[in-house]
């Protein structure tokens, strides 16, 4: 069962989006997977005349896995460094953590 979802949104100036995405793929994604996060999807959205939001949806199998991931991230200085670099570049950033509550839909 995968019942935890994490949605990261990083809003960047248009000129920064490609470089940040490349850095994320190289410096953040592999470690996140090792910490137990499963990448569901990542997508882009133009949110202003010169601003692109990069959304990333992750999943985890439960609250216990969430806290395990949190502990591993907290113990890795590279994680804090990555987000510090991101926050220095980004227009804004959010992370939402939630519990899946998707209804069953029948045709």
């Amino acid at each position, binding site marked *: 069962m995968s019942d935890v979802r994490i949605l990261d949104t990083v809003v960047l100036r248009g000129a920064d989006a490609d470089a940040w995405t490349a850095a994320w793929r190289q410096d953040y994604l592999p470690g996140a997977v090792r910490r137990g996060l499963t990448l569901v999807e990542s997508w882009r959205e133009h949110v202003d005349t010169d601003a692109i939001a990069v959304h990333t949806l992750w999943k985890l199998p439960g609250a*216990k896995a969430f806290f395990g991931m*949190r502990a591993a991230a907290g113990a890795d200085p590279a994680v804090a460094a990555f987000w510090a670099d991101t926050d220095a570049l980004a227009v804004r*950033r959010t*992370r939402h953590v939630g519990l899946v509550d998707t209804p069953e839909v029948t045709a």
Partner: protein
Amino acid sequence: MTRWVALAAADVPIPAGTVGGPDLPGSVGGLGATWDSVGERAPEGAAEAVALQPVGARQVPLDGRRLKRTLLLSVHPGTPDETVRRFEADVMAMPDHITTIRSWALSRVATPGSVWTHVWEQEFADVAGLTGEYLMHPYHWTYVDRWFDGEMPGSIVAPKLAHVFRWADGPVL
């Protein structure tokens, strides 16, 4: 009189007038035992003791032995006081959501030079009340945890924590 929380090695004798016991498996960041006392001075023999300045507390009747959990944490220096008060309010709302929390207390640390800024204490009827509903409740990990999660923009709590819990024969809070 001041209430104190102290961390000590498990083999250090507990002084008269102080209650305490060894930290149970699953505790993290402690020194082996946790003590609680009330008095003018810190309990003697503790490696680390902090005086508590109450922010909020509630006493809930509970008979007999109970689990005493203590979380020592440190809010980043320079965090605006309004933000600290919002953090404190969010923490103190946990008992409204998490039914296994019985008596509780949130305090600011009044000991100059301490690495800790806050102490969040609870009593539970059993270990499962802490390791089950307390940790697993969505109010905890989808909301309150944002203050602790270094990956979360706006987090204010340093990664180093002391999360310790022990058995207590009677009420501590």
